[in-house]
């Protein structure tokens, strides 16, 4: 019997939004078109147009020992080329940012190969071969409904803001003020790269989504939107996991799980 991934439990809109993120067959709404070079500028690791730095020769040119895992696993393109590994890190506001840290981690793992990701409360990093990273940073992480210019921050260090109140323009706090609200256009402009180095010219990442839209697409439970209390299926699954871990302990037997 073929395994049918369920992605995430829960009967609420929040649970469905989480499933939509994780399910690679769901195409997220494309909301903006940020030029490739602008993404590269915000990431701050390569000059636009500059060749990718490599850390080893192309795999084809390398004399590697035989290993059947190499026959089983197709390397991603950046690995084939020997590109170095770089990162992009996001901070997501608890005020209804579209993606949230564990949602990001699970989404990356479901949708992409060659990913190394780390999750904390205030930031979520993804590391990949640089060329592959830039591709998903643009096409998935920033151009789609996975991102909002006001309540998602691209931040390498001094990331804090996820839990703070929003500023008067609805932007998430950033001690380094990497992005600002342009009152003339109503757009958010990045004036510094992700580690806070000033950019030669601002990068426009577009208009913030409306609060109504954020409430529709967010993946965080909130009492003033969809409270977790309402998602009885999710709570039931979490309790089941807890009970299985507790009663299974170090000697799980089938009996342990029979009546869960």
């Amino acid at each position, binding site marked *: 019997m073929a395994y049918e991934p369920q992605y995430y439990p829960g009967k609420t809109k929040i649970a469905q939004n989480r499933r939509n993120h994780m399910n690679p067959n769901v195409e997220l709404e494309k909301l903006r078109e940020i030029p490739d070079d602008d993404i590269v500028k915000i990431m701050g690791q390569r000059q636009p147009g500059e060749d990718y730095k490599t850390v080893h020769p192309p795999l084809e040119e390398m004399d590697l020992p035989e290993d059947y895992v190499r026959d089983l696993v197709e390397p991603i393109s950046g690995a084939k080329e020997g590109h170095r590994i770089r990162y992009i890190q996001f901070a997501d506001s*608890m005020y209804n940012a579209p993606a949230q840290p564990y949602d990001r981690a699970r989404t990356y793992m479901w949708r992409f190969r060659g990913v190394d990701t780390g999750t904390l409360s205030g930031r979520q990093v993804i590391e990949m071969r640089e060329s592959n990273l830039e591709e998903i940073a643009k096409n998935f992480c920033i151009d789609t409904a996975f991102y909002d210019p006001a309540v998602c921050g691209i931040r390498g260090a001094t990331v*804090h803001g996820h*839990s703070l109140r929003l500023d008067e323009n609805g932007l998430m706090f950033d001690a380094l003020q990497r992005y600002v609200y342009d009152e003339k256009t109503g757009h958010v402009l990045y004036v510094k790269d992700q580690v806070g180095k000033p950019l030669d010219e601002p990068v426009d990442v577009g208009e913030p989504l409306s609060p109504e839209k954020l409430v529709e697409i967010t993946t965080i439970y909130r009492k003033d939107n969809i409270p977790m209390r309402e998602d009885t299926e999710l709570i039931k699954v979490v309790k089941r996991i807890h009970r299985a*871990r507790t009663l299974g302990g170090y000697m799980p037997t089938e009996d342990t799980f029979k009546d869960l």
Partner: protein
Amino acid sequence: MESEKKLFLKALKEKFEEDPKEKYTKFYTFGGWKQSKRKREFVEHAKEIMEKRGGIPGYNPDIGVPLGQRKLMPYKLSGTDDIVEGDDLHFMNNAAIQQMWDDIRRTVIVGMDTGHAVLEKRLGVEVTPETINEYMETINHALPGGAVVQEHMVEVDPALAWDSYAKIFTGDDELADEIDKVFLIDINKLFPEEQAEQLKAAIGKKTYQVSRVPTLVGRVCDGGTIARWSAMQIGMSFITAYKLCAGEAAIADFSYAAKHADVISIGTALPARRSRGANEPGGIPFGILCDVVQTTRVSEDPIEQSLEVVATGAMLYDQIWLGAYMSGGVGFTQYATAAYTDDILDDFSYYGYDYVEKKYGINSTKPTMDVVEDIATEVTLYALEQYDEFPTLLEDHFGGSQRAAVAAAASGISVCMATGNSNAGVNGWYLSQILHKEYHSRLGFYGYDLQDQCGASNSLSIRNDEASPLELRGPNYPNYAMNVGHQGEYAGIAQAAHSARRDAFAMNPLIKIAFADPSLVFDFAHPRKECARGALREFEPAGERDPIIPAH
């Protein structure tokens, strides 16, 4: 709980001076670090220091991250009315936190019965209340650094060691009656009657000495020194008080008893990879910390009793042990203080108390999975909903680790209130963590991905190498050894079980009695208040070197 009755509201209003329910505010307008009186003072001090040391630069808040882009919040010590700056809760800036650890580290308990048996059965020397009083007078001369046997000895200036003394306690009321009151830790006077009876029943007729080695000794040397310093002075005092021969074989028995056989250290020695000896924070089990804290003697409120243990544990395990000994960092204070400031954990815990009191009664139900799940789920959801409802509360606990620690601690404490079972409580903690993770799709720092995801598997096991009763676990328990925001809370959960049961002690009655001593510098009945006094610079510590340095 109705909105206006939330315990944390007073602190939030003081901290932010804005509507705690408002989601929008202004940032970047507070004047950076200059908004903080304490940081301005730091800058002044740094200027003086730079001049004194020939221009070598030091503290400069304009280096690195721009501090103060948002309001640098003050903190209200929970359970008090004292509001202090965050910097003043760092253990380096807080003499009370330092003394709390000094007083624990410099304490060693030594059983007297072996020594007395050697005197009576081997040497035929009579031991009476009078000889014990004479011995106590001698040890109170020797322990701070006075000579008793050799005639050409250097000694310690008593002004440096005013905090050093020895006392005695016993479960034998008749003997206690005849001991000079200045030497006696009087169980009957210091504890409520029911607790005194429990304690005396637990220790029997035995007699113990409590040695308080000078604070300075612990600071210059280490916790492993304390039992040795105490043992050396005990041996010398026995020789003097009982007129023994300094070289006779029986002295070896006193030494063995005082150094090994009858010694109760506060913390056990740690494995080599932790690089610490006995009586260091990493070796202090949670149950022992419960017994060090004395709120059970002075308050009948089981939540307050538990929260004072959480606070002491946060200071000791998070700020001092993990925050400095183990990591060398300076930032752990921010995590740790979340558990004892702004009445937030208090609010969550009292909510849980009310919930279990109505539904189950206190210490009135068996620790089943259903009970743990019900209570931990309700308290966790309540706690997290408060962060949704009050944006300034969320901003106060701006790190996920802070929120995870207090929501789970309140859950664990509440489970203990219903069941009186600490392992059920810690199981509730773990359920809280994984519920929290799905609620916010985030939890704490990486550490919360470790122990809090696998902890349920060992929370109801007491088999060797798999787990332990929570009271016997400690900072060096596998998986607990590296994560801030846990250990103080675990200790509080252990205390909660015993508070619900109205136990006089959690793990070791000797520790509970030894720290009931009113002569201690730090008041272990009110650790949060003491911490506030330290932050407000009202606390007078021991271990100062003024008598031997130029006037300043």
